């Protein structure tokens, strides 16, 4: 038994050595925290977020004459862990800002933002509350929120003849977000709504829910399903059951490009409203093209929606630090309120007296490309939907009072 114990201990020590890779710390660097998903089924999203920030960091170069050091932390896609890790970034690593969080992490951080006292810029959070009734002076957002996406849905219907006169059905996960999407679809004028269903969060077999959409005679199925494995499973099974032949699949937000690549041909059954970014925007904006090329050079794949968005958030932060002339948090927040920056998703600035970036949205179907580009064979044909249309009111009118 003693032998077994020492052997197991030895193995354990060995495994520690194998996996350990402590980060080298540069003393005079500007430190930026990246708090995102590093394990589990949603990791590809975290990978894109991280890759986008890395690319933007390299493209921007030194900030205030110092190199930028990214301190990467795992959020475990768990709100409570995210709070601990954000605290670690601030207290132990003394970062000047935090990037990379998604909705549930951002919501959790909102509660402790005043305790943390550094700017947090999220580029992957849908929940409207983050920059509306729950807005906080430390928390900024560069991607469009859910209600903005909902407005873009009307535009998508207007642009897509097949969607006019369709019978709409909402098939989603049991999230508040999904119910909001359902409500906003119902709110579109002259639209026939035939029903909805909300599946438990750990659904892997979508057959019962697909059967419901079918029984309702749906010809347009809007799918507020978690991006990642669940959405892949759902689309695959919808295709398996032949639902894709009867109905158009409408995504209320854009699909990440790694997901499109996995779907391959099946992705052409999907049309998306409210994409936060689209790499094919490069056809009308050279900033996007420059970024795409740099991204491809660094990571060898196409820059997905999360990568473009997180890069934009990083660029906003670096420009604000430069403008403030210091990484002191109060000064950076002040600078963020006023800057305007050309980013891979277009020119960005934050809503006056608010924390939501005035950001365009992208609409359109996924299609096969004539010639593969950046390793991608499928991509969204993107039409830009301007920020002015999606966020027509002021921050105060949306319930955000920073006081």
């Amino acid at each position, binding site marked *: 038994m003693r032998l*077994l114990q020492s052997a*197991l201990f030895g193995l354990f020590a060995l495994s520690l050595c194998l996996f350990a890779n402590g980060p080298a710390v540069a003393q005079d660097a500007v430190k930026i925290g990246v708090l995102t998903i590093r394990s589990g089924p949603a990791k590809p999203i975290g990978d894109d977020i991280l890759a986008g920030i890395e690319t933007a960091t390299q493209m921007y170069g030194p900030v205030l004459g110092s190199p930028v050091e990214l301190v990467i932390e795992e959020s475990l896609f768990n709100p*409570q862990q995210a709070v601990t890790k954000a605290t670690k970034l601030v207290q*132990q690593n003394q970062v000047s800002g935090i990037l990379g969080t998604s909705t549930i992490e951002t*919501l*959790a951080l909102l*509660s*402790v933002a005043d305790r943390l006292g550094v700017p947090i810029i999220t580029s992957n959070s849908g929940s409207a509350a983050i920059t509306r009734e729950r807005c906080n002076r430390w928390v900024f957002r560069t991607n469009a929120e859910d209600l903005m996406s909902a407005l873009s849905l009307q535009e998508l219907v207007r642009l897509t003849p097949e969607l006019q006169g369709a019978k709409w059905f909402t098939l989603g996960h049991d999230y508040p977000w999904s119910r909001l999407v359902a409500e906003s679809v119902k709110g579109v004028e002259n639209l026939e709504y035939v029903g909805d269903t909300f599946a438990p*969060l750990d659904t892997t077999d979508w057959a019962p829910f697909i059967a419901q959409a079918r029984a309702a005679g749906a010809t347009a199925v809007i799918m507020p399903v978690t991006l990642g494995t669940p959405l892949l499973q759902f689309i695959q099974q919808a295709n398996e059951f032949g639902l894709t032949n009867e109905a158009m699949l409408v995504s209320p937000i854009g699909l990440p490009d790694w997901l499109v690549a996995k779907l391959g041909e099946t992705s052409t059954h999907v049309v998306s409203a409210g994409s936060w970014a689209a790499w094919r925007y490069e056809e009308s904006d050279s900033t996007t093209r420059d970024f795409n090329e740099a991204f491809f050079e660094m990571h060898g794949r196409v820059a997905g929606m999360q990568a473009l968005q997180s890069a934009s958030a990083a660029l906003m932060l670096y420009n604000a630090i430069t403008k403030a002339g210091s990484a002191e948090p109060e000064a950076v927040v002040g600078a963020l309120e006023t800057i305007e920056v050309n980013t891979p998703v277009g020119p960005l600035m934050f809503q006056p007296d608010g924390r939501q970036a005035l950001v365009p949205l992208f609409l359109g179907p996924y299609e096969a490309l004539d010639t593969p580009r950046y390793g991608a064979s499928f991509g969204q044909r993107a039409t830009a939907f301007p920020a002015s249309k999606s966020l027509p009111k002021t921050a105060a009118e949306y319930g955000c009072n920073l006081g």
Partner: protein
Amino acid sequence: MTIAVVAGLLAILPFVGAAPFTITLLTEGLIFAIWAMSLDILVGYTGLVTFGHAAAFGLGSYAAGFFAREVTTDFFVTLLFAEVVVIAVAVTIGFVVTRVSGIAFAIISLCIAQVLFQIAVAWRDVTEGMDGLVGVPLPKMFGVTINAGTELYLLTVVTLAAVCIGLRRLVESPFGRTLQAIRTNEDRAAAVGINVRLNKWLAFIISWAVAGVGGTLMVFLKAGTTPMSLHWTESGNVLVMTIFGGLGTLFGPVIGAISFVFLRDEFTTRFEAWQLAFGFVFVVVVLAFPTGLAGIIARVWRSLWPVRS
């Protein structure tokens, strides 16, 4: 006495140069310690292995968080409210689940925790669904706000010490021995006149009530909670902490919880495949050290001072 000394030592840590983040992690560890001790009452002393103990902790968090946000942030009133809710639920659930033991108990408790999880997802008016209960303010004591950091840490240390003293008395009382008798053999316990079901029920309620205290502190530390706190994987985590520390020792789970928090923090920062390392450590402990860290410490202690054993 030992408890007072240890608590005193813990309490001076922030004033002798411990890093702020060490204090943050330690706060989390000590809150988990309360939770793990409450599980030890159930698993270590009564022999009821549960895969649903997150329900008690998460329910405490939700009740306290909701009350603090909507009614008052006074720590004592909030704690009282949370305890009333947790105990009421524990009385009801406990009455039913303590009819069984062994694997049936483990699975039923898991099922019930999953039902609570679903309620947290679906009862959106109170829980805000999957987005979670956010924006819970800091607690007040006698009208003074307890700030995050050192103050919240000290509150946790004091609470932990109180829970330790209470549970220590409990396990050394006739009732505590009764529970141990039930753990060893339910039939034999019944044959010495112990009402097995009643005692299991009481143990269940006490365990939940203590876990509710931990949940209350946690919702203040994290300023909110989400349905994930009720998920069965969290129940697995607390089981890991308790067994890792050493079942049936009370001080073992405290060590287990603190090491769990620090190890998890290190592992998740350092390794992308942290689950591999984590699972490995757990398997090694269960296989080679059934008495947990507490057992290892006791063994080392005895080998250093052989006379004292």
